[in-house]
């Protein structure tokens, strides 16, 4: 199983797509998820996203992502359940009630977040970091410094996660028990953020220096080696995503 947000080599349709198109499609897909509240449509989008993930052999990674997004969206869902008294009352609360509408709204949030997150995360699993940077610079005219900063940030996420795991292992070896409730785990992890922060700042500084001594400041839009031509598949994917967005907006406009 690949590490979080780390490129997984492959030759699937998604792997072969133009990096900028992948990024644009993922963003359009995410906007579509937020444009509509139609649960059936969102479920179709979620299934579509899961099929995409399976098509490039990233089922396990996506399942892991879904678990993480589910845990996060569950918090939002609980808040919605407790604060949105809609539909037929099911459970009375001192300040209102939990109704069928509340359940639907909570479920919609969970499905929406999962459907929106999957394509965005897939982009990073199926695209080399340099291709995202170079394509964004060449085709989307994003300034190189911003594109590089963005991809470097993504690049460092697994590095910092590994560092945190290392720090936790070292603490475990010294008798700290991270097993137990989430609250206990968080309480034990907070002091570890200081060494993580120190090592992160050091690593970031080293990376910046290493990039600078390899001519980072000389980079221009034209100096990228690879070209990223758009193929028929890219245009097709763009068209599908635009249609999905249009359908989501139409459903919202019709109040469905």
């Amino acid at each position, binding site marked *: 199983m690949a590490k979080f947000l780390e490129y997984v080599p492959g030759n699937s349709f998604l792997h072969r797509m133009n990096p900028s198109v992948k990024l644009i499609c993922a963003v359009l897909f995410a906007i579509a998820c937020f444009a509509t509240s139609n649960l059936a449509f969102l479920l179709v989008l979620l299934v579509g996203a899961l099929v995409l993930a399976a098509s490039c052999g990233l089922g396990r990674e996506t399942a892991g992502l879904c678990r993480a997004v589910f845990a996060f969206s569950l918090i939002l869902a609980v808040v919605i359940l407790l604060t949105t008294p809609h539909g037929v009352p099911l459970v009375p609360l001192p300040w209102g009630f939990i109704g069928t509408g509340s359940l639907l709204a909570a479920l919609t949030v969970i499905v929406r977040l999962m459907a929106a997150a999957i394509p965005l995360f897939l982009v990073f699993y199926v695209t080399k970091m340099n291709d995202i940077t170079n394509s964004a610079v060449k085709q989307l005219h994003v300034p190189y410094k911003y594109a590089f900063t963005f991809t470097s940030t993504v690049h460092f996420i697994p590095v910092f996660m590994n560092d945190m795991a290392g720090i936790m292992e070292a603490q475990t070896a010294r008798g700290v028990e991270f097993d137990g409730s989430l609250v206990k785990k968080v309480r034990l992890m907070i002091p570890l953020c200081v060494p993580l922060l120190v090592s992160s700042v050091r690593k970031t500084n080293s990376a910046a220096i290493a990039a600078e001594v*390899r*001519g980072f400041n*000389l980079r221009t839009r034209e100096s990228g080696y690879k070209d990223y031509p758009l193929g028929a598949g890219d245009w097709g994917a763009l068209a599908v995503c635009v249609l999905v967005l249009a359908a989501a907006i139409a459903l919202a406009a019709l109040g469905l």
Partner: protein
Amino acid sequence: MIEFKEFSFRYREGEAPVVRDITLSIPDGCFVGITGAAGSGKSTLTYAINGIIPHCYPGDFYGSVTVEGLDTVEASLTDISRVVGSVCQDIDSQMVSTVVEDEILYGLENFAVPKDEIPARVDEALGAMGIADLRDRTIDSLSGGQKQKVAVASVIALQPRVLVLDEPTAELDPASSVAVFDLLARYAREHGTTVVVVEQKIALLSDYADMLVIVDGGRIRFADTPDAVLAHSDELLALGVNVPRATTLMNALGAQGLYGGPTVRNVAGAAAALKEVLA
């Protein structure tokens, strides 16, 4: 030519200079090994060559450091990086790409190397480091030694006239360390590149370096051929420099008048010398 003239440097957050009164000339094409105890100022010397000080780590800079005629204080870091290729100590932080080929391309793209030259440069760099088969591998899947070779390859693809490496074998086993030094030395010989390596493994350095520089407390204590430097094994040990035991043994025999031959650097040399003495 790299020239230090009465160079001293104190980091802005430091209380005392880390290096003091350094005067040293490194001729073109020379393979120089810098060693010394931890905190002696070895890395600071490499930072002075590649311009990291004072450009990235500010402080009080005295004297001058020139590399191929460029004053490293007056020249911009970018201008210095056209001449000096650097491999940092923290290899993982140096990697900006997810795939080996992209890592090699990174510097070439930055320096706007003509596109028709790039494939040959990438092939040559990968070939020189013996990692042509790793071209499409993800960086994350590589061993420490392989990452080290990728880091060196990504720098030599830029064809720098000076190559600066800070502890390139720190995380490598002895066999991988020798492999990296073999490849480096061969590349430097073939291209006339000046190489400056900071390294703790003095025995390894002695086998490859034309000049060995021993730093202690921010000052150069010895700067000579490996044989000449290793002849001072007692002083080196007192400075915290780990001299090969074979060298220490033969130097001790020499001090007793039992051996008068050249400095011995390894067990094989000591065995041959002892056989000669006992014959």
